[in-house]
């Protein structure tokens, strides 16, 4: 169980070594997310159209280790953009992956850049 979690750690913009093409912007619903496969990882890609922002994070919810975060609803808590896991509605900041429901959990976030109509996610390897 823990090995799966270890695969995912946040990547800072400066540390990006590989920009992975996750697909077209139209692959990701407005104000929603979808999941892409990158090497052994499952990555949730969020098209936060209302805020004109894009986010990427692990698809694995650390609460019960299920690959479902991309299917959750997004929104904001105060000004923080967040995603709520569809299983038990644990919420996480899309900016830094910290938990917003008072739990000792966190998720990894990855930088996203849009080049023309392509969605690129930054990884270290």
């Amino acid at each position, binding site marked *: 169980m823990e090995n799966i979690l270890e695969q995912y750690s946040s990547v800072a913009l400066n540390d990006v070594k590989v920009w992975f093409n996750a697909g077209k912007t139209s692959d990701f619903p407005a104000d929603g997310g979808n999941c892409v496969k990158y090497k052994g990882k499952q990555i949730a890609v969020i098209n936060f159209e209302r805020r004109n922002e894009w986010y990427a994070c692990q698809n694995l919810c650390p609460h019960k280790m*299920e690959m479902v975060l991309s299917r959750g609803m997004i929104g904001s808590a105060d000004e923080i953009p967040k995603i709520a896991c569809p299983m038990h509605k644990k919420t996480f900041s899309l900016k830094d992956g910290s938990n917003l429901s008072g739990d000792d959990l966190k998720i990894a976030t990855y930088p996203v850049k849009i080049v023309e109509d392509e969605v690129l996610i930054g990884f270290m390897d």
Partner: protein
Amino acid sequence: MIKIIVVGNGMVGFKFCEKFVSKSGQEKYQITVFGEEPRRAYDRVHLSEYFAGKTADDLSMSTATWYEENNIILNTSELVTDIHKENKTITTHLENTHSYDYLVLATGSAAFVPPIEGVEKEGVFVYRTIEDLDAIMAHAKKIKQNGSTEAAVLGGGLLGLEAAKAVRDLGLNAHVVEFAPRLMPRQLDKGASNMLRSKIEELGIKIHLSKSTQYIDGENTITGMMFEEEELLKVDMLVISAGIKPRDELGRGAGLEVGVRGGVVVNNKMQTSDPNIFAIGEVALYNHMIYGLVAPGYEMADVAAEQIMQGEKTMRESIDMSTQLKLIGVEVASFGDPFIEQQEGTPIVYENKLNGIYKRINISKDGKALLGGILVGDSSDYNTLFQIYSNGMTIPKNPEDLILGARGGESSSMGSAMDLPDTAVICSCENVTKGSICCSITDGTAETLGDVVKLTKATTGCGGCKPMVVDLVKEAQKSLGKEVKDVVCEHFAYSRQELYDIVKINKFTNHNEVLGTVGKGDGCEICKPVLSSIFSSIYNDTANKHVVEQDSNDRFLANIQRNGTYSVVPRVTGGEITPEKLIVLGEVAKKYNLYTKITGGQRIDLFGAELNDLPEIWKILIDSGFESGHAYGKSLRTVKSCVGNTWCRYGMDDSTTFAIELENRYKGLRSPHKIKGGVSGCIRECAEARGKDFGIIAVEGGWNLYISGNGGANPKHAVLFAEQVDKETCFKYLDRFLMFYIRTAGPLVRTSTWLEKLEGGLDYLKQVVIEDSLGIAETLDKEMQELVDSYSCEWTEVIESPELQKRFKHFTNSDDRDDNIEYVPMRGQIMPRPW
């Protein structure tokens, strides 16, 4: 630095430290604690939970670093042996000497062991420390291995009964042996004791009252207890919980004044006969009494802390020994004077042996005041009764209403929490008065319930006062002119009902429109499904619209399961299915290896369908004549039926056809929470219609219509709405009832709660629906008819549209499945691996 030494690291010793460091000026003092036990202070009150799986750490009163963080030196496993009050020093068993400016004795008490012959034999324990419990557990394990099953507890008081539960949790048959003719003789009268006894005996614990133990039988290990009259109780373990004996040896040795039966005498400042030495908790003898409860101990700790800091606080004269607790699953409460002498007052007793409830209240001679009482089996009245008693409030003209409830009348005879004086203590665990709760709102230091809790700590102890605190906060907010509204979430300043009206009037059709015009921020997992539901109720949008703003299940038109797969539930209207269709379901389940189960709603659930397979599975089902069952939505689920007069020899009418007609009418309807219906062909009620949001029963001359029943965590039976009406009338009333509910209920509020909260209740609802008192019946009829007419099966929509099918893929950039999914076998089928 002014030096304080605390002798004793129990609950009260800890509380002294906790209270002390929270006061300003505490930096001038250095506290050193000495404790005989090897671990830091733990919750002795909840000791029995140690047998139920809690660890010593779970019971700890503080974190491991708390003492260090607060600059308190804690010395465990160090027993203070002598006090030298002339030079203000103490010596410990390790022959260390320490000096003090102030000494606080919090040495508590030891278990009292009655001088019974044989009590030193193996297998006899006291029930006080974690070490005692470890020894009891070890012995229990040993004797169980030898086939023993019986163990006894000496003492039928509070602690003895707790110990009996603990013994039972260890897997042994427990016998409670009590010298007095009653259980909990200090808190309960004979009637209450009898009630408690029968309830406890139902759980398999045996009670032996009026038993005087002569000796403990057995060679070196206990084999039994011999009572008077040559009666032998065979047991292989005995736990003694027959009272406490204050650990006053230090005080005695130092020449402090002690009581005749033990305990260090203190004044109302908690000072002993030496003004620099204080005593608190079970070792302190105050007003000739040792208080074996934690609440007075905590109060004493606070008084001592204040006094040392040159403050003014003193201990109150009379200490309340009221208790409310759950003993072995039985609610028990006792307050004020539970017994009352004839000259002082008169008791009113309610004894219900059928339901296992005993309530007693003692009324003053002039009939105006409540002097005390006892509750067994149902202590929900405790908070209110205690407030009335402790504040000397005037009681109702018919005092029996206090325990019987206002029968026949409309208003509550007990008044609201607002009737209490400001000095009334609402939260007794943290000693928070009504005044401090209300003032924090009215003077602006706190705005919400959360603020009040943070500020005062009310509700953070046992939580029993929460309903009262919530009411007080609401009232205080209202008194400020603040409107207390049930707003949906941080993004809208409106209730669900208001949002419904706003959407309808403005003809908003999507989330961004609503958010942008009347909301703020970006929405969330609370308001998004609320708006989606509202759009469905107004425009009959299916869940194929506003996909990303649908809740977990509606998003994929299926119920998400533990491993991220989904379940498939086609509609089986009225619970009726042809053999051919049944076979289709079996074949689909086989083809996709789906776990198959029959639901309470009389249909079939297929589990383990992967997201990618859902459209394919549903194509087969729809081609075979099935439709979406909406098992995933806050919507109509099913209308259960019994077979009725078509086949059944008792049936009075055709309930199956009626159920099918109802289900076909309301299928696809979305609502604040799920709705379930039922139709029974006669009073035997095989469809369990009276447990449904709407239920119909065939009677002579027509149908009886019931509404607002619910299952779930707080089940409620449906209430009779109309009698002997025809089908058409049922449809009309249901159209209106459902539409009214849809328009006005809060998010995730079921019909039973909605009806309970509806101002005017059932009578009002009847006026609105049957008599059209609001003049909206035509509108409600029209709205429902529009929804019925525009019904469309959302799975059929998906099957017919490749565009709608796109979302049913785990990855956008691959056809791979989620490889995190694992199954384990279960009774010839499968289930997801356990979490």
